[in-house]
Each structure stands twice: as structure tokens, then as C-alpha cells.
């Protein structure tokens, strides 16, 4: 009997990683529409270049690097337009997301990679294309800012 094969198809991995890719793209771009455009473009590129992926390390690392690279190119083209696009609260991801990505540029992505995704400082800095020293500083700033946001949120609820 000819059974259908389950080939090692990167498209299946991409679909499974979509929520995480969107979250990372949102941390970079600050707005859901831009994040989805980045993810769409990155996925198309990943499929085209899938033969470069040798299965070593985490696939997310390769994909996030691609998203970040696309975002850097995009940011150069549209310098200064981010603040207008990223209206806090005006987003498909809801209020908590708007609060996170409303932090100064670079903080959310650094925090996400290290504290949520579990990358080492070196790996995260590599993905973001920044020196470890800068990542360390951004991570610290993000944690302190999030602590303040958390306190505000608790007080508001009380």
C-alpha cells in the first residue's frame, strides 16, 4: 500500500510556529498589520531558502533573524513612521500587547528573546543584530519598565 509520506516540509513547522513568529514580529514592529506583513514575507523567504536550514539549533533562531532582518530593511525605508503606526490599544493583539510593545524600541524584543523564549544573551544579540552589551542594557531597562507597568496595573485594579 502506498502510504502518504509526511515529508520534512518546513511549511508545517512554519504553521506551527506562526503564533510565536507573530509575537516576535509585533515586539519589533509595534503594530499587528506590520507584524503580519513581516511574518508573511519571512515565511515566503524561509520556504524559498529552506534548503539552507540544516536542522541544527532552533528553527526559531533562523526565522527570527529573518524577521528582524526584514524589519531592519523596512525600518530604514519608513524611518520615523513607527510611532504613527503603533497606536497603543489599537491592535489585534489587545491591550496587554499594546502595553508591552509600547515600550521604547528594542526593549520588547530583547525581553521576549531572553526572558520568554529562553535564548542566551549571545544568541539573542545575534538574532537582533546588536552587541551583547546593548542587549544587556535593553533587557534590564525592559524588566524595570515592566515592573513599573505591573505595579500600575495592580493599582488600577485595586
Amino acid at each position, binding site marked *: *500500500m*502506498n502510504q*502518504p509520506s*509526511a515529508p520534512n516540509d518546513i511549511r508545517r513547522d512554519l*504553521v506551527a510556529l506562526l503564533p510565536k513568529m*507573530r509575537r516576535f514580529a509585533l515586539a519589533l514592529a509595534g503594530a499587528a498589520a506590520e507584524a503580519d506583513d513581516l511574518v508573511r514575507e519571512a515565511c515566503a523567504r524561509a*520556504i524559498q531558502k529552506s534548503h539552507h536550514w540544516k536542522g541544527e539549533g532552533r528553527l526559531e533562531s533562523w526565522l527570527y533573524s529573518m524577521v528582524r532582518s526584514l524589519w531592519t530593511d523596512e525600518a530604514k525605508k519608513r524611518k520615523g513612521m513607527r510611532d504613527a503606526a503603533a497606536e497603543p490599544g489599537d491592535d489585534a493583539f489587545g491591550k496587554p500587547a499594546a502595553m508591552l510593545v509600547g515600550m521604547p524600541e528594542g526593549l520588547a524584543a530583547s525581553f521576549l528573546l531572553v526572558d520568554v523564549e529562553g535564548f542566551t544573551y549571545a544568541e539573542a544579540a545575534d538574532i537582533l543584530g546588536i552587541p551583547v552589551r546593548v542587549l544587556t*542594557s535593553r533587557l534590564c531597562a*525592559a524588566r524595570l519598565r515592566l515592573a513599573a507597568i505591573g505595579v500600575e496595573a495592580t493599582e488600577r485594579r485595586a
Partner: protein
Amino acid sequence: MTETSKEIDIRLSTFIDGEIGEEERHEVEALLVNDPQARASQDALKRGRDFGRHAFDEMLKEPVPLDLVRAIKTAPQPRRAVRLPQASRPNFSMKPTGRQALACGLLLFVVGGAFGYMLGAPPLAAPSPDALASVSENRDWLEDVAAHYRLYSRQGPHLAELPAGKPADILDWLTTNTGVAFRIPDLGESGLAFQGARLFSAAGIPAGQLFYKSAEGEVIAIVFTKSRPTVNPATESIRDDIGVVSWSTPLATYAIVGPSSNPSLDEIAAKAAGLI
């Protein structure tokens, strides 16, 4: 905030992650023992980390846009460039003698004449109507399979004609009407529970349909019929929001049908193919 306190915060932050040298670690530990302000900062850093983690985890609960999923699943795979091993090419100098040039000219004349004669000859036979019809029938079959899934997967309590509790009746009924001997696959490993079966007509031929449900209420169907035009190797196609993975054996044609957003349809198909 002074530069010094900022630097202390950064050291405390790296200390939390263990990304700090041995000597520096001892310094930070001593600082935490002696300086209440440092302890407060470290608590704030940890609170921020926990709050941020929770908030980012919440973001994963947002539904993924279906068009993104479709864009990925329908994207063509790139062709791989295959480089065949080649023997090193011997050096060849292009200096023909007069005789060689004449022989070459004659050879080219003969080959050119033959090529021209073939071009002028009546065209080769067009693809047979049978071949065209089989492609068209296969497309119709998949359309019917997707259409029936779309209709019945939304019927809630009326999903199946015969419920899962009557497996012997299902086997007898569908085998008799479709002419396909089959077993009811247990897809519990894929988180799918058998719900029952239906009989319908796809491209004018009886087809059996076995329904399964996931814990989230997602309906997956296995469809089988007497052998259709070959669909090997297994192929996945998308009809709007429905994904169909189909494959053939010498005796029957099968398909797994489900939401196109389900990334595991081909895995389920592989399991079902081994069990049915």
C-alpha cells in the same frame, strides 16, 4: 537615575540570568547582602520579568489569521539545484582539417533536412480524451469531497448517519455500498475520537466518510471510494478553508479532510493510511 545605579541595575539583571563572571558574581552577592537598595532593585527586576512573561504568554492565545496559514501551506517549495558529478573535460582544440570540415557540413545538411521534414509532417496525436477526462474527474471528486465535508462538519449533533457506537453496521454498510474493504482507524494518538460515518456520492460514485472530532471540536473526515484517477504521491490541496490530503492504492482512493489551518493533516493521513 545616576549612571552608577544604572550600571548596578544592569549587573543585577545579568546576575539573575547567570550571565556574569565568577568574580563579578561574588561582588553582586556581597552587594545584595549589604545594600537594601540593591535588593529592592533585584526584586523589581524579577517582578518585571514575571509580569512580562505572563503578558507575552497571553499573546500566544490570539488566533492566527487564516490567510497567513493559507499563504504558507500553498506556497510552492523551491526546486533544488542538483549538481551531477562530472568528469573533468579533456582539452580540445578546434582546428578541423579540410576533410573533417566537409564531413561536418554534410552531416549538418542531413540532420537539418531530417529535422525540417519532421516539422513539416502532420502533428502528433493530441492528448487522449480519456486522459483529459481523468484529470477533470479527479478535480470534481476533490470538489465534491470538500463540499460534503463543508456541509456535514457543521451539522453538530447530526454529523453522522450511523453513530460510532455501531462499528459493525458501519463496516457492513459502507463496504457493501462503496466496494472498499476497510477498518475504522483509531486516531486517539492524534487526539481524534471517532464520531460515526456517512455515505455520499462524489463525482457520481459512492464514497464512505468516517468522522472524527478533536477535543477542541475540530472535525476531521476520512473519505474513501473505489479507485479514482491516481493521486500518488499523496497530495495536499486547499479549497478555501478546507484542506484535503488524498492518496491512492490499487483498490481505492482515500482523502483526509479538515480545516486548512490544521498543520497536521498530512501526519493524520499518514497514520490513517497505515490503519485503514
